């Protein structure tokens, strides 16, 4: 399936892209992160440390083991620092 992947903050900077469309069969966010990390050295640097990452699936916060089935947009970013 085709999924739109968005990156924010230092994840975006390390990947070097704000977003990209990827073709994936990943079952969970964790699987998708592993696939994405193979795309470039920047991706690997951004996505290697899962503990430092937070995710959203279709604009809802989700854990790394959340299923990706049916997802159209996923986002990967550092822990949030609003307020």
């Amino acid at each position, binding site marked *: 399936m085709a999924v739109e992947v968005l990156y*924010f*903050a230092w994840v975006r900077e390390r990947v070097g892209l704000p977003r990209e469309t990827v073709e994936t069969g990943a079952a969970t966010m964790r699987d998708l992160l592993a696939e994405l990390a193979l795309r470039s050295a920047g991706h690997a640097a951004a996505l290697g440390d899962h503990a430092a990452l937070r995710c959203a699936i279709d604009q809802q916060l989700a854990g790394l083991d959340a299923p990706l089935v049916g997802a159209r947009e996923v*986002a990967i*970013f*550092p*822990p*949030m*620092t*609003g307020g």
Partner: protein
Amino acid sequence: MAARVQAEPFDPARELAALGEGAGAVVSFTGIVRDDGDLAALEIEHYPGMTEAALAEYGQGAAARFALTGWRIVHRHGRLQVGEPIMMVATAALHRRAAFDAADYLMDWLKSRAPFWKREIRRDGSSAWVEARAEDEASLARW
């Protein structure tokens, strides 16, 4: 009953007007860009689309949980100068405790669950992303 995300400055005082209608207590929290010595500016990135939905969801959640008569969330993004308000939360309720707790609760959610990321820009031009603090996550666990 409104959540807004905007690049433009806002006037905290103005946001409070009319919020107290029918209420006995109004609490507001305003976060301000603070110069910690050599801060030139703050840059705030957010997740357009998700941010607005998340703020509205947290606001409605707080309204239901604390029986609010009114609430407001305003959060800026983009480049902010020292002294400028970053965001504000205001809550109105029949009684004091509910208004205080709801504002405190919303701030905990905003700090750790709303998709905003801050970068500090120093006077020498260097910059660094603000790291999430363990105490903010712990504060959220109180609720």
